[in-house]
């Protein structure tokens, strides 16, 4: 296969420095929605100025360039081993060029590898095979530690919250998670929620939902309605940008249902910060495009 290291490096540069248009547009709407002169509006003003600056200077939007999460769809026959090597090399190079912070530390000693190299799980790469006629796509999400730390997993029923094993119960635990997060995950956030699965699959899917565009309609009408309801109700809580108080606590909510065993009913909430960094590259023959 062709060497895509340089193209993957460009994917990393774009992801770290150039906020996607749908996210920026939503932040601009939030700015106009907040009261003139409020701390919330001031925070959004700073955020938007920073987005412009990061883009024009090609510097990271946020210094926490997070865990690099790669999602690769590869046509049948392509070597995942070779793709992985190119991704790892591109990550190392991106760290040298300061598009990424050296973020990988030993679990026990805390020693920083200095170049974002790590073990089998760092950077995290998910592979999925597709038909041989389809293009290779690589998606990258950079998710910082602050927002990752406010993620939560619940097991229904939850007696304390009177949350049963139904969508009404899902609604309650999600509201609880966001209230507990306050501004610590860099609000306004975007919620990725998975209902069902085992614990591992559930968390994984909660992040995968974040790869879709803001405002994308959920194919499941019931989940779509719950997404809209949650966004609206959460924004009534008044946590606001940075937790300063205000009207915009989340920008969007995304929910995915997963098949589960009858005994388990997990709800996993992944909180994405406003610096919602995700980009995709598509490789069709010699053509490489980015969106």
């Amino acid at each position: 296969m062709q060497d895509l290291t340089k193209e993957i490096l460009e994917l990393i540069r774009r992801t770290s420095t150039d906020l996607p248009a749908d996210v920026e547009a939503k932040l601009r709407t939030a700015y106009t929605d907040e009261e003139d002169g409020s701390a919330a509006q001031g925070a959004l003003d700073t955020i938007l100025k920073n987005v412009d600056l990061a883009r024009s200077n090609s510097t990271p939007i946020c210094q926490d360039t997070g865990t690099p999460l790669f999602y690769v769809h590869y046509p049948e026959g392509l070597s995942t081993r070779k793709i992985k090597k190119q991704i790892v090399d591109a990550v190392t190079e991106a760290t040298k060029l300061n598009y990424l912070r050296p973020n990988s530390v030993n679990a026990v000693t805390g020693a920083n590898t200095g170049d974002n190299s790590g073990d089998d799980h760092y950077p995290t790469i998910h592979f999925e095979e597709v038909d041989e006629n389809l293009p290779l796509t690589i998606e990258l999400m950079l998710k910082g530690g602050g927002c990752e730390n406010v993620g939560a997993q619940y097991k229904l029923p939850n007696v304390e919250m009177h949350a049963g094993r139904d969508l009404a119960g899902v609604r309650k635990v999600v509201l609880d998670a966001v209230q507990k997060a306050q501004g610590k995950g860099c609000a306004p956030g975007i919620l990725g929620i998975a209902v069902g699965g085992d614990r591992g699959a559930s968390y994984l899917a909660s992040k995968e939902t974040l790869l879709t565009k803001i405002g994308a309609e959920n194919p499941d009408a019931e989940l779509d309605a719950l997404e809209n309801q949650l966004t609206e109700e959460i924004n009534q809580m008044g946590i606001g940008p940075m937790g300063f108080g205000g009207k915009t606590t989340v920008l969007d909510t995304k929910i995915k249902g997963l098949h589960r065993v009858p005994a388990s009913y997990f709800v996993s909430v992944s909180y994405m910060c406003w610096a919602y960094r995700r980009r995709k590259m598509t490789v069709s023959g010699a053509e490489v495009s980015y969106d």
Partner: protein
Amino acid sequence: MKKLTLPISDEDIRALKVGETVLLSGVMMTGRDAVHKWLNDAFIAKTVEPTEDDVTVFEAIKPILDGGIIYHCGPVVSGVDTGDYKFVAAGPTTSIREEPYQALVMELFNLKGVIGKGGMEAKTLQGCMDTPAVYFHAIGGAASLIAQSVQDVITVHKLDFGVPEAMWVIDVKDFPVVVTMDSHGGSQHVTVKEKSQKVLDELMEK
């Protein structure tokens, strides 16, 4: 907009109230998880014997922190190989992880404040009242913008902690922050949390 230059006096700190926007200038130091734990273990709880290097670093940071500020930040820095350091991206990190140590560190150095994001809780608020000190909130994620207020990287201590965790001594100009916890017991975080809890309770009844 109020402007303050480090070191800051107790009078200036007492005059600050929740909600005020301030532009900070002068020499401060970054410090986050590894630094707070190191300070606690070697110099506060004294559960480990400080090495010679630990003592040297401790003596070097004392004058910077007396009347000074710790910035909860793990920056992206260029020139790490050459020593020609420059801050590329330097927004705040979530402060709450330092809650077990912060008040003790404030007292140890006569710190006048910390800069971070997300706010801190009761122990630190008490530390703010006693020392006195304040919690300055920077805008999380605004890393490229904040890096521009860093005029100079003076030196770095404990670079072996890793770039994000090291103590970077920096000279800043007009670093924009909002006071969200003051030295009189005021906390914007408590206010917002209580208000959102009330709304949550109502929503849970529906």
